[in-house]
C-alpha cells in the first residue's frame, strides 16, 4: 500500500507531465513537414533530434517535480508523524517513493517516443525502432540523475517552493558550469543525444555512450544513497 500512497501523491503531476510530453511530441511530429527547411538533407531525423531537445527540457522539469515530496515535505504539512508511526523503515519509505518515481520517469521517456514512432508510421515516415530505443535510453538512463538530485534536494529542504526552486537552480547551474568547463561530462548533452548524433545523417550512433550513461546512473545511485542517510538521520 505504500506504492498506492506514492501513486496517489504523484499521479496528478505524473499524468499532467505525461499528457504534456506526449501531446507535444505528437503535435511536433505531426507538423514536422511544415517545419522542415529546404537546406536540411536529413530532414525528418533532424526533426526527431530537435524533438529530443525539447523533450529533454520538459522531461527534466517533470522528473524534478516528481522527485519533490517525501517525508521531509510531510513534516512541513504535518503528516510525518502518521507515516513514521507505521511499522516501516525510513529507507523503505524512500525506496518506494524512488521506485514509483523511476517507473514514472521511465514512462515519461517511453510513452512520448512510442507516440512519435506510431505517428511517424501513420504519416508514412517510419523511423528506425533502434533510434527510438536509443533516444529513450539516453533520456531515462542518462537523465535519472536529475530525478535523484530532486529526491536529494527534497530530503534536505522542506519548502513547497524552496525545494523545486533549488532543484531547478541546480539543473540550470549544472548545465551552465558543465557546458563551459567540463563539456565532455555534461549530462544534458548526453541526454539530448548531442554526444551520439551523426551530424550528417542525424541518426544516433549504434555505439551509445555507455560509459556516460553508467556514470550518470552511478551518480544517481550515490545521490539516492545520500538521501537515505539524510532521511534516516533527520529528526521529525
Amino acid at each position, binding site marked *: *500500500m505504500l506504492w*498506492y*500512497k506514492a501513486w*496517489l*501523491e504523484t499521479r496528478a503531476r505524473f499524468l499532467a507531465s505525461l499528457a504534456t510530453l506526449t501531446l507535444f511530441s505528437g503535435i511536433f511530429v505531426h507538423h514536422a513537414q511544415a517545419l522542415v527547411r529546404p537546406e536540411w538533407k536529413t530532414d525528418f531525423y533532424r526533426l526527431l533530434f530537435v524533438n529530443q531537445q525539447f523533450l529533454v527540457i520538459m522531461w527534466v522539469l517533470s522528473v524534478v517535480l516528481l522527485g519533490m515530496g517525501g517525508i521531509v515535505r510531510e513534516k512541513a504539512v*504535518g*503528516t*510525518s*508523524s*502518521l507515516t*513514521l*508511526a*507505521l*511499522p*516501516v*523503515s*525510513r529507507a523503505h519509505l524512500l525506496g518506494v517513493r524512488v521506485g514509483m518515481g523511476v517507473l514514472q520517469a521511465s514512462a515519461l521517456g517511453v510513452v512520448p517516443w512510442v507516440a512519435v514512432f506510431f505517428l511517424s508510421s501513420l504519416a508514412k515516415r517510419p523511423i528506425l525502432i533502434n533510434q527510438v530505443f536509443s533516444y529513450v535510453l539516453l533520456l531515462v538512463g542518462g537523465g535519472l540523475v536529475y530525478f535523484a538530485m530532486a529526491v536529494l534536494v527534497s530530503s534536505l529542504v522542506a519548502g513547497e517552493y524552496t525545494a523545486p526552486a533549488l532543484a531547478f537552480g541546480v539543473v540550470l547551474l549544472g548545465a551552465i558550469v558543465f557546458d563551459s568547463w567540463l563539456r565532455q561530462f555534461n549530462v544534458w548533452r548526453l541526454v539530448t543525444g548531442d554526444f551520439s548524433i551523426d551530424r550528417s545523417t542525424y541518426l544516433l550512433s549504434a555505439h551509445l555512450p555507455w560509459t556516460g550513461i553508467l556514470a550518470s546512473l552511478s551518480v544517481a545511485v550515490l545521490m539516492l544513497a545520500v538521501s537515505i542517510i539524510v532521511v*534516516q538521520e533527520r*529528526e*521529525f
Partner: protein
Amino acid sequence: MKNDPVILTRLLTKSYGNTVAVQDLNLSVGRNRITAFLGRNGAGKSTTIKMLLGMIRPTAGSGTVFGKQITDAEENLELRHRVAYVAEDKPLYGYMTVEQTIRFASSFYPEWCADVEKRLLHDYELPLRRKVKTLSKGMRTKLALLLAFARRPELLILDEPSEGLDPVGIEYLLKVLVARSAEGVSVFFSSHQIAEVERIADHVCILEKGRLLMDASLDQLRQSYRRIDLVFHTPAPECEFRISGVQRIQTSGRQMSVFASENIDAVIERAFDLNAVSVEVAPLGLRDIFLETVKEN
C-alpha cells in the same frame, strides 16, 4: 514479563541547543492500565512520545517500549508493530478518502479487526467516499481513533485524543478506552481535559518543563492530597506550617489554605496547637493537584 512496564525510560533527555525539552526522565508505564501523561503546553509530552516512537533521538538516556530499545532503528520498527499512535494534530493524508485511508492503514497490520472497523465506522458516522481534507476536525479525530483501535495494538499512545470531539464523542471515546484497557491493552495518553483523565486513568504522570514531577496512581493521589483551610484569631502564621509534605501555603489575613500531600495529621495538630478557630480538611481533585504541582514548580 507480564508485569514488566510497557514503557520504561532512564534519564531520558532531549535538548535543542540550549533548550532542554525533556530532562532526566525516568518513566515507567505499567501494563494493562490507563496512564495519563499530564503537563502544560511545552512541558515535553509530545517530545517524549516522539522519542519513544523513534521520530526524534534522545540527547542522553535510554528508553524501551515492550523491552525494545527506542534508539535502535530495527527494534523501534518492531515495537511500532505493537503500538498505535494518534498524534496531537491527528495527521491524515488529505488526498485520500476515508475508505482509502482505512485500506492503507489496515494493510500494515495483520491483526486488523474488520469488526471494530465496521462498528466504529457506523458509530462515528464516517463518510467512506469523502476526501479526508474535507472532513471536520471532529471527523478527522474519529478517523484517527478508528485507525488506532481497529489494528488491535498492545499499547495505545494518544496525544490529546479528545481534541475536536463533541461531548458525545468524548463520552464514547472514554468508554472505548476503558473497554480496551479491560481487554488488556495498555493506554498512555496525554490530555489537558483533567476531568476526563480523572474518570478513566489508573495512573498519572505529571511533566513540567521536561521533568517528571509526579508518577503515582490516581487512588494514591486522591488519598494523600488534602487542602486544609484554617482560620486564626491573629494573622496566619505561615512559617509554622512549612513542614514536609506541604506543597503550598496560601495566606490571606487570618485565613490560610495549606495544600499537602502527606503529614496531614501533623498540619492539623499544629493548627490546633496554634489555636486555629476553624480547621476544615477537604480532599483535592486531580485538577487541583495538577495545578498545585505545576504552580509549585
